[in-house]
């Protein structure tokens, strides 16, 4: 007779078979049998967070920096509801998470039992799929399917809700069966015809642009490699979404910087004026497109994506290729190389004029700002941080707001999986716990959370996690005492009515660092900045860096609401220039 295992044992056997090494969690009544079993599985390390949201974001940071699914373990009721923000965040940004939640025993479900909530009901709209396992015989199958759903196609979070009696019940264990298909949901069915059609468009294009996104990162390091080859073969300019940063080297000349609401002048104008737009693994998000009706009006549009529902959702495209970025781009590269055997010249000469135009836009130097030797400008702080860390293989997470945009604009990423930020959901409080997860996945690497003081306070408790596991994460706070992005919108659009966007009673971050048992560093003078940043990098342990920056700085350039790409507001220098025409002040 085969050996019988308890539900809790089966959970761990599945995690072992799925090669899980770390789980992020917080114990509670309804998951105690699983926690009881933890000691018998030394290959799996549990990271105790301080709040379940932190567990979710840490697992996201872990997943995004390592390419492996992040695993979360929480209890029923509040444990599950606390993780909802992180699940939604992972859903929006396509991060593979497997969340295991405890549930009250099956006979109490529906009775408003202690710490009961309808977990599968609550998480249904923010997961790719979820399961309530009422029968122990389904558990191993569901666990393995959960990993498959989370990691295949467009990745995303899943949740498995396991009632306490099921964790105790016993049954046989079933190994994963990789044969079974998910109702035929494989999305790699592009044809050579489509590739040939794309090649035709490439050769005809005079003003092409490549717009790449998080799909390239999600497709794995090979996708970034293929993308670099593709850009090299074609000689086309490339811009990237917030989530795609790092797929193509940020300091390369063919890279135009990020596009969208706070993207560069050259990237946005190129998007507007191009005649061929190749979207690789991005989803025409509203922060990218600006006004839909005037989005890239004269271009043929190509969309390469693994998720068919992303195609034609917002922008109608002329050629859609549904497939995994790695396979599609590799195929394109092969086809280009083959067809080039006859004639060595590509259409690079066709696009020389286009590059001239782009260089003209570049001269605007749209990321420019007026530096000061009295107060630290936040852009300057990010630039110095970049200069002092660029030679290390640095991993950067962020919170959400102005600091996030400055980080995206001024920190140049050269490798994929080095940049973890909450783009879709825009979750303040993401960066600190995400940094915890990144550091767990890469214990020897330098991990920095570029933070705002308002955001970081939302999940500050996870410093305690960092200290417990001696994770040397660096929390680099651009402290302007405001919810900066809120303040900026209020300044530009709400007649400077700074309603509730000023934090009147901020904590002393130095004392906070001391209280958590980590190091605190404070900088408020530009001349001290470099050596203090160096001190942070050199310190072997977690650091909270309180960088006092100019509170009135705005994040430019920007596309104001309801405007197309070619009507950007530039920084203060340009606004001075344009004063006579009144242009660029239209919104103020």
């Amino acid at each position, binding site marked *: 007779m085969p050996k019988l295992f308890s539900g809790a044992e089966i959970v761990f056997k599945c995690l072992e078979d799925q090669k899980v090494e770390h789980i992020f969690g917080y114990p509670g009544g309804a998951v105690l049998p699983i926690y009881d079993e933890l000691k018998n599985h030394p290959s799996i390390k549990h990271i105790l967070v301080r709040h379940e949201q932190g567990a979710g974001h840490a697992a996201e940071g872990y997943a995004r920096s390592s390419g492996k699914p992040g695993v979360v373990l929480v209890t029923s009721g509040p444990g599950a509801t606390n993780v909802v923000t992180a699940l939604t965040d992972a859903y929006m940004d396509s991060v593979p998470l497997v969340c295991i939640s405890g549930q009250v025993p099956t006979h109490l479900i529906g009775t408003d039992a202690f710490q009961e909530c309808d977990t599968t*009901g609550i998480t249904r709209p923010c997961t790719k799929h979820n399961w309530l396992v009422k029968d122990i015989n389904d558990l191993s199958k569901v666990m393995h399917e959960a990993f498959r759903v989370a990691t295949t196609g467009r990745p995303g979070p899943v949740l498995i809700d396991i009632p306490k009696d099921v964790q105790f019940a016993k049954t046989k264990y079933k190994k994963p069966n990789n044969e079974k298909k998910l109702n035929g*949901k494989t999305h790699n069915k592009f044809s050579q015809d489509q590739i040939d059609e794309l090649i035709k468009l490439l050769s005809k294009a005079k003003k092409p642009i490549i717009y790449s996104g998080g799909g390239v990162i999600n497709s794995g390091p090979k996708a970034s490699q293929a993308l670099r080859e593709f850009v090299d073969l074609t000689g086309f300019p490339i811009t990237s979404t917030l989530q795609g940063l790092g797929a193509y080297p940020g300091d390369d000349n063919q890279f135009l910087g990020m596009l969208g609401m706070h993207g560069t002048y050259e990237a946005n104008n190129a998007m507007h004026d191009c005649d061929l737009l190749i979207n690789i693994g991005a989803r025409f998000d509203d922060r990218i497109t*600006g006004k839909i009706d005037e989005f890239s009006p004269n271009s043929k549009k190509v969309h390469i994506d693994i*998720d068919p529902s992303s195609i034609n959702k917002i922008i109608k495209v002329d050629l859609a290729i549904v497939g995994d970025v790695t396979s599609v781009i590799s195929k394109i590269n092969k086809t280009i190389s083959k067809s080039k055997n006859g004639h060595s010249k590509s259409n690079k000469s066709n696009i020389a004029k286009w590059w001239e135009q782009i260089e003209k836009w570049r001269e605007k130097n749209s990321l420019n700002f007026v530096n000061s030797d009295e107060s630290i400008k936040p852009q300057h702080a990010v630039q110095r941080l970049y200069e002092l860390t660029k030679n290390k293989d640095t991993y950067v997470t962020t919170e959400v707001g102005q600091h996030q945009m400055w980080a995206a604009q001024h920190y140049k990423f050269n490798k994929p999986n080095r940049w973890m930020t909450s783009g879709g959901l825009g979750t303040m409080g993401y960066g600190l716990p995400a940094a915890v997860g990144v550091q767990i996945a890469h214990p020897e690497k330098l991990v920095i959370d570029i933070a705002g003081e308002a955001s970081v306070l939302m999940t500050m408790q996870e410093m305690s996690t960092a200290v417990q596991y001696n994770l040397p994460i660096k929390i680099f706070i651009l402290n302007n005492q405001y919810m900066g992005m809120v303040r900026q*919108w209020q300044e530009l659009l709400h007649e400077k009515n700074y309603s509730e966007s000023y934090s009147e009673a901020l904590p002393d971050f130095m004392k906070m660092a001391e209280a958590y048992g980590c190091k605190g560093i404070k900088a408020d003078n530009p001349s001290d900045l470099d050596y203090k940043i160096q001190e942070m990098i050199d310190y072997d342990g977690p650091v909270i860096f309180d960088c006092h920056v100019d509170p009135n700085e705005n994040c430019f350039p920007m596309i104001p*609401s309801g405007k197309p790409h070619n009507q950007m507001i530039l920084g203060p220098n340009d606004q001075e220039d344009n004063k006579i025409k009144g242009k660029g002040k239209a919104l103020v």
Partner: protein
Amino acid sequence: MPKSKSAYSIPTKKQKSETYIFVVWVDNEAGVLARVVGLFSGRGYNIESLAVAEVDAIKNISRITIVTTGTLQVIDQIKLQLTKLVPVHKVAEFKREDKGVIFKEMALFKVVGKRNKIDKCLNACKKFNPVILDETKTSAVIQITALRREIDKMNKKLKPLGLISTSRTGAVAMTRGAKIFN
């Protein structure tokens, strides 16, 4: 155009909405209807009517028929979003005007009144295969099968003839001829 104070773009072009019927084959498991219906409400799609029942007890397949309205872009999205759901096997969609597909709804009318009124009701329903399911001296339950708008019309027409209660299903659909969906 008034100055926008929103961080979001302003809706501009409005396209024409059309009525479509979706047929969805799903695993008959707990919560599957909630997933399908939740997708519609969560993404702001409209449901005009809904009919669902198991159609294959061995393979455990249910068939959901949903009548909805939306622009072509929305209809396209509904199909793609439905297809992404894990328990969904197959999705088919048809324009309401599609001549190759039969759409039917069923209605039960309770009429209370004298015999001559009930006969008048039956007569009015003649075109829609009326069946009397229950009959007393002063009442009758009449079943008809018809299109949505025909049932709407009958519902109004029978009111003065003693109709006191109506119960109706959502539309179900089947292709004409030998061919099947997909």
